[in-house]
């Protein structure tokens, strides 16, 4: 019995190690950047930041059903605004980043591919029905290739999977997030960042979901809107809301 209690107590230990836990629910595309932001944030003692990444739609459904998250960084604006309208956010939401989309053609010069209309066999995009990068990609393809059926489009569940299809060589091109290309250290000549007037804007909004559990939580909320945080976000391949609003 004592041994059993000892082992059971082990399960409780991780929770005891930090006085305050701040949970950040984040769309997959922003995860790496958020990790950098957490590192950059002057961490208060005894605070643990937990990052939960996933598809925005999944996180949204979980939040509606009471998932214990402190922040939500959606890949779009709509989901955060819906939560806001339902009174499920604490304070106003804000645009934390505007996504930039790139055409990536591994092993080829992307500018050349785009300008000379070099053939692309299979292009990988995120799902246009629910992923903002997917909607942007689909409208870009429609505008550029129209009814040209020679390009086969494959659809990843999100922009991370769209990237993955290209990375594994199963698609020879992809419309992916600039932030992914930067964080994966893809050579710059392999991609072209598309002008943002060529696709619907990928405005990503965030919100605090409940009253700050500890000082670190409200401190982090302020930090996210600082110029220091904006610099990290821009270096990661996004435009920040501060400039355009």
């Amino acid at each position, binding site marked *: 019995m004592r041994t059993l209690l000892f082992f059971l107590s082990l399960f409780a230990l991780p929770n005891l190690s930090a006085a305050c836990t701040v949970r950040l629910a984040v769309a997959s595309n922003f995860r790496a950047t958020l990790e950098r932001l957490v590192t950059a944030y002057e961490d208060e003692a005894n605070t643990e930041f937990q990052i939960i990444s996933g598809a925005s*739609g999944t996180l949204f459904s979980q939040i509606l059903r009471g998932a214990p998250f402190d922040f939500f960084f959606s890949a779009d604006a709509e989901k955060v605004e819906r939560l806001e309208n339902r009174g499920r956010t604490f304070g106003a939401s804000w645009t934390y980043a505007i996504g930039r989309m790139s055409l990536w053609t591994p092993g080829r010069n992307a500018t050349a591919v785009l300008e000379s209309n070099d053939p692309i066999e*299979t292009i990988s995009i995120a799902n246009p029905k629910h*992923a903002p990068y997917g909607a942007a990609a689909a409208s870009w393809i429609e505008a550029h290739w129209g009814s040209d059926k020679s390009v086969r489009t494959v*659809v990843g*569940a999100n922009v991370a*999977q769209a990237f*993955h*299809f290209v990375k594994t*060589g199963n698609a020879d091109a992809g419309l992916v997030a600039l932030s992914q290309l930067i964080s994966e250290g893809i050579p710059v000549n392999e991609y072209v960042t598309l002008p943002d007037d060529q696709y619907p804007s990928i405005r990503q909004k965030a919100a605090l979901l409940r009253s700050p559990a500890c000082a670190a939580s409200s401190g982090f909320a302020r930090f996210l809107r600082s110029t220091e945080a904006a610099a990290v976000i821009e270096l990661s391949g996004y435009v920040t809301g501060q400039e355009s609003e």
Partner: protein
Amino acid sequence: MSPEDLQALWLTVKLATSTTIILLIIGLPLSWWLVRSQSIAATAFNVLIALPLVLPPTVIGFYLLLAMGPSGPLGALTSTAGLAPLAFSFPGLVLGSVIYSLPFVVQPLQAGFAAVPQSVLDASSSLGADPKSLLLRVAIPMSQRAVVAAGVLGFAHTVGEFGVVLMIGGNIPGETRVASVQIYDHVEALDYAGAHQLSLILVVFSLVILTLVYRVWGGSVFTQSGSKSA
């Protein structure tokens, strides 16, 4: 229900049917050999076949995608054979499903074959039956329940497949967008009504299949004693 939903359902039926047929063709001789062989190779095969029971589908899907890529073994194979790449294609999904559902077909068959009395097999041999007719004319007819169970479970498990398809499918309508993926898309797009409709069909389908299994075969397909003493 939208035409896209219907298309996804139809594709699911097509995938499950093709997978089940292939699995029975492979599974019958394979299970027969596994039951009768004491070799180390048979043990190794048993372990390999059971792997999908333990491994998350994402692991299987991930490595299949790598294998199907131009630098993977399957990708090299298809390109030397002059075939279309397997990723994002219906044949690719069938291959993934065959691997993923293999234990659900092989294990009931093994249980069925193991229950065929050795005395019957010995008698058949002494009457001149070769190994092939032992399987086709003695073991399979005596394990009908197991064969049906294997088919039903293989089919049902393929209908319920999601992770592997998500990893290697590419969500192409009519080609790789099966019902489970379509439901995921509805949920992600916050179209809960669409998700409910399609889910309802799958729930009803599962209930019918399981009711059949329990009513018609008394549930014994799962805990197969196989030898239905005629």
